[in-house]
């Protein structure tokens, strides 16, 4: 089944929107869940895990180009988020805060992977896919594979901007909120990213 990717950065507003009583019971806000967890209700954290794991897996997959790595990154990020939940200054913006953790983890993984490859100085292929991944790659559209390969060559900040803008469909305002950069800086990052991506894809498309 083919479905469109879910949008990632639907950043919650600063103030709580109007919510019905059943909403608040069945689907509590991030801030309410964070308060419960901080009050000792560890199990409530599962609500946040269920709410965001798919969105962040998609983001991490596009950032790292590997589904297995993405799962590790999201798992680690969620555990880190739980351990430092008291540092989430504004729980109504939990999603943006979690995004920054995932984003940093992605960059760290990619940097480490590149360093390992450089250290080896051999012809090991860019990614040794597991049999499961090999099947997935086989099914993946060629165009999609070329994009992933090209994105991997880009600097992390440009890759992140392109993924957020053109796969996760973020607006510039949402990106500003998530990445903490000014609109003009993001426009420049996007433009450089597009140019670099065209260079990488030149001849393959």
């Amino acid at each position, binding site marked *: 089944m083919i479905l469109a990717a879910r949008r990632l950065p639907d950043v919650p507003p600063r103030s709580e929107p109007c919510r019905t009583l059943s909403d608040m019971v069945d689907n509590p806000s991030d801030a309410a869940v964070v308060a419960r967890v901080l009050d000792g209700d560890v199990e409530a954290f599962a609500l946040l895990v269920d709410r965001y794991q798919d969105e962040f897996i998609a983001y991490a997959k596009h950032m790292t180009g590997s589904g297995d790595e993405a799962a590790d990154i999201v798992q680690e990020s969620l555990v880190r988020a739980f351990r430092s939940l008291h540092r989430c200054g504004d729980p109504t913006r939990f999603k943006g805060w979690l995004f920054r953790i995932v984003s940093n983890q992605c960059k760290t993984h990619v940097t480490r992977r590149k360093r390992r490859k450089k250290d080896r100085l051999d012809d090991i292929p860019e990614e040794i896919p597991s049999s499961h991944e090999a099947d997935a790659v086989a099914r993946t559209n060629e165009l*999609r594979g070329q994009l992933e390969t090209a994105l991997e060559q880009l600097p992390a900040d440009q890759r992140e901007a392109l993924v957020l803008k053109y796969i996760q469909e973020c607006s510039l305002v949402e990106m500003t909120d998530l990445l903490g950069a000014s609109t003009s800086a993001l426009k420049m990052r996007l433009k450089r990213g597009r140019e670099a991506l065209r260079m990488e894809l030149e001849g393959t498309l």
Partner: protein
Amino acid sequence: MKPEHERLSQYLNGELPREKLSPELQAEADGFLRPFEEAKRERITAPPWLGSAVMRRVRAAPRSRWRGVLDWLVTPKVVRLTPVTAVLVLAAGITLGTVMWRRAAPGPEIATEMQDGRVTTRFVFVAPEASSVAVTGDFVGWRRDGIPLERDPNGNGLWVAVVRLQPGVHQYAFVIDGTEWRPDPNASQLDDGFGQKNSVLLVPPARS
């Protein structure tokens, strides 16, 4: 490679509707976005084990309440103040600092013994940069040269003079380098009627 057309940039940034592009630029935009459209079709979901793996780790190391308190204490906080509050806090700090400094600083010391009907009084003034310091007042007819203070040999910037004064209320000031008149920061002050301040000293009668 030719630079990106400005209108194409605006469209790809989400700042311009597609209809505003020429057919050529629309085709160029579609060509750029096509791989992303393909990527978006891929359904990516978390593996089934992920949620339970996270919760297993979370349960294994629950945060204790004391740990939470400790973390809160050592975590930097952003303190938000209105400008008015900030000014008030600053003013309170300066006032408190001034009071503490005045308490700590040496002031005129008055002996408890009296000789020849006069009370021994020790004047102290802090002026590390001064070349000379004198104390003058009603007890010397406000002469500019007054009674010279001696620099403390310990090199702490203190100037000291011991003067015998009649019991009663005296007004005085210090003269720095023969030109600059300054009140004693450690004593009460009165307006001298000419826009300056005089220091006030009460010398009580002491036993002989």
